[in-house]
């Protein structure tokens, strides 16, 4: 089981993802350079957070043209898992791997916090180790994390069970106050039609080591491990 973590110019959570996978999960990991044209035989691709190309023009708009993204796209089409976190989520939307878009937070400001997330679906390769409805505490840190999509896309995501996580309060209720960025329907993470690409704004890789707080992100990685071991 090997994770590949893409480093774009300006990625800054690549290191955190690497350490989470290697130190906490005990799996193998490799950094994949944005100019590379193969995936080094990895099983799971992580598009990490950060500010690829400084988020200039628009978050993710330039990174999607990196040479490595052609390989990531083919890996996804073959059914290979792709975990796209924060800036990675923005890149995945720009690249057409996921529907919808991420725009400036409703409050206009960058928001750094630890938020509650509700697990909306257990039948995905990223969430199988969680119980549906469980409430997680996961850090967020983004300025452009407001998920938007047209109504038919939103309906399809709901119908297919492809909304992975929503922002909620401590009790699991979805409220306006618990939505940190104004995302439609409180969406924090979604899957593609085939269920092998997960995009999420919160940072599960920052919530895996007990010394830093509740390690609620760990089960996401363990879900992937369990799936790949089958």
């Amino acid at each position, binding site marked *: 089981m090997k994770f590949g973590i893409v480093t774009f110019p*300006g990625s*800054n959570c690549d290191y*955190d993802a690497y350490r989470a996978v290697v130190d906490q999960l005990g799996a193998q990991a490799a950094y994949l350079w944005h100019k590379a044209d193969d995936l080094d035989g990895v099983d799971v691709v992580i598009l990490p957070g950060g500010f690829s190309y400084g988020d200039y023009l628009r978050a993710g708009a330039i990174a999607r043209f990196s040479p490595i993204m052609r390989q990531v796209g083919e890996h996804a089409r073959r059914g290979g898992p792709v975990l796209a976190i924060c800036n990675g989520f923005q890149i995945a939307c720009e690249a057409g791997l996921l529907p919808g878009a991420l725009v400036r937070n409703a409050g*206009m400001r*960058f928001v750094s*916090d630890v938020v509650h997330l509700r697990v909306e679906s257990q039948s995905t390769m990223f969430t199988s180790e969680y119980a549906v409805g469980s409430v997680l505490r996961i850090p967020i840190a983004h300025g452009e994390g407001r998920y938007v999509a047209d109504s038919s896309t939103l309906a399809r995501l709901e119908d297919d069970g492809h909304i992975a996580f929503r922002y909620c309060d401590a009790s699991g209720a979805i409220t306006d106050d618990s939505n940190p960025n104004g995302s439609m329907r409180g969406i924090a993470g979604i899957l593609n039609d085939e269920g092998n690409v997960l995009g999420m704004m919160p940072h599960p890789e920052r919530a895996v080591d007990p010394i*830093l707080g509740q390690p609620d992100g760990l089960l996401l990685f363990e879900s992937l491990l369990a799936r790949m071991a089958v």
Partner: protein
Amino acid sequence: MTKVEPRPGDPRITPALVAEHGLNEDEFKRLVDMLGREPTFTELGIISALWSEHCSYKHSRALLKTLPAEGPQVLQGPGENAGVVSVGDGLAVAFKIESHNHPSAVEPYQGAATGAGGILRDVFTMGARPIAMLNSLRFGSLDSARVRYLFAGVVKGIGDYGNCVGIPTVAGEIVFDDAYETNPLVNAMCVGVMKESELITAKAEGIGNPIIAVGARTGRDGIHGASFASEDLSEASDAKRPRVQVGDPFTEKLLLEASLELIKSGHIVAIQDMGAAGLTSSSAEMAERGEVGVTIDVTKVPVREQGMTPYEILLSESQERMLVVAKRGHEDAVHAILTRWDLTSAVIGEVISEPVYRVTEGGRVVAEFPGSRLVTDCPRYSPEARESDEIARLRAIDVASVAELPAEADPMWTLDRMLSSPTIASKAWAYRQYDSTVRTNTVIGPGGDAAVLRLRGTNRAIAVKTDCNGRYVYLSPRNGARIAVCEAARNVACTGARPLAITNCLNFGNPKRPENFFQLSEAIAGMGEACRALDTPVTGGNVSLYNESPSGAVYPTPVIGMVGLIDDIAHITPATWSVDDDVIVMLGELLGEVLGGVRSGLGGSEYLARVHGVVAGEPPPCDPVLERDLINCLLECIREGHVRSAHDCSDGGLGVALAECAIANRDRPVGAVIDLSAWSDVPLRELLYNESQGRIIITVPESSLGRVAAIAVGHRVSPMMLGRVRAASRDLVIQTAADRSFIAPLDRLAAAYHDAIPGIMDGSAESAAVLEQAAVTTV
């Protein structure tokens, strides 16, 4: 010496031009004597920058030399880009604080952003990977629209820069006081980690080695930023906005990665940020440290606009640039690393044996100085120091005579008023805009007594904090500076850390005024006393003088950036209460020690400033030796596992400290019953709001009480039981003399503390304007 002649097209050297460059007659004469001739325009520009206060420390150097700078923990003391201390296991921590006050006063967003960028580069040029940023900020009152604009802009500038580079902003302080109305203070600190073996310095060595400019191209921005920082702010300062640099955090991130790769590669011998005074100071200082000559050809410098003169290229403060001395023959390897990170690099000069600092424009020599005299011949000044009569008068006022307001008859009114003071209140409005968890080391983030970062791969952690109460320093400079050091030490100790070393940022007014120089020299003396007692050497820092405008000087504000070491992550201690029935104990005297005949009262307190608008009286006395004993006592209690929480009791006094322990963590407020009836003969306001030093509030389980008392006595510290944690209670109950006891509902305390700054800033037009403006600059 080569023949140096004026360059065609350059202005003639006239007394007016010399004055415009900030050189007085004596300094100009010194320059002519050094050269043995009249300087060229380029040479005048170079000296103007290098002899500015910002680069030369001409008014402060003699005083700074009195500070302790040595200790077994110090690997690199003052004089380099950053100080470095050993933290065990072969690891070292590099850290430094620096000001960006003047740029932030005229252009808050870029001023603060480039301040963050500059201090990051100072740390990674030592070979350390930055792991944390801190910010010490001072503004005027938030009642002013201009101040709200400055505050919003500075916070966004810090956030946008640090967030993009991916370094967490984890701690700091924000103070609001009219003294900073037109001249805000923006001090940024960076902390990095490295292997001791990877330490690199900025010392040019090896005759024939190439000098390489790397990173961003050089433009016309920020020319004479160093000189701008070395004069008073005035009405005309707004016109100097072009002297403010423009930051590009994306390039900074690439430069960070490329620089660390260069240092590890072994292809280079030295590296330095092109910061204040750009190429000029970086090249001159590297040559001076290495005692070698250098020659630089400005036509080889990658520029981003046509027609730049040697003067402009040498003095540009374009950001995200580094100067590297590589090993001869390794140029291609250096270029390859920079190219991989999409950055430019160009050989622009050479280390030479001839003792000369020479700048050429192709074949023409445009500037030449003998040896490194352009750095070492800088004048030194020890101006007159004399205390202001006005301040002495303020200090002598007996503040006990300040009459209570009628509203204070309700003790909840006063506590509300204190907790909602923007200086005391939660700063989450600001730090929610800073990524504080990236790089996954942050164990305690913003809002704690100090931030705690684990040292990956070890069982250790470091604690970091900045501190200074400028009001104390204003009223009593020597004592105020002692307090700044001791409070920073207590703060890191409360998280379980042993204070290790400090960096300082000395924000003062124009040193040519005797009352200002008095404050500077007294403050440095007090700082030295405290650092010696606590064994926390000063490993470097920054001096920012001329912090004044037509309305006067800022409070003298020597900000202390403290680093502490936690030997075992099991010792990491939070500030807030959590466990029901824990005993609340004060380590130290509730009303302070009587020191030198001075008993601590309300002098210089936040209470007097906030509730009565009075800045007067004798600030609380501080004895660094007693503070050392207190810290040793606390650390022994923590190491033995008795302490469940520890919180420094300082600004705002006991009343504020107790409330913070209860409600600082808004998601988990915890009540308590506090019994102060033993002090019922003391006026309530003195009991709750005097700011005696040397006090720490801890909570311990009942079973630890005996042992904690024994440890305290062993350290000559008096422990006092104040009350008990009531986890299920929704109140903080304060029992004192029967008629003055009161019950403070936690919801009300939390609202006062947490909603104060959002209540002012959210929806304010100035805050919205900053968001609009910044959106435009980043598209």
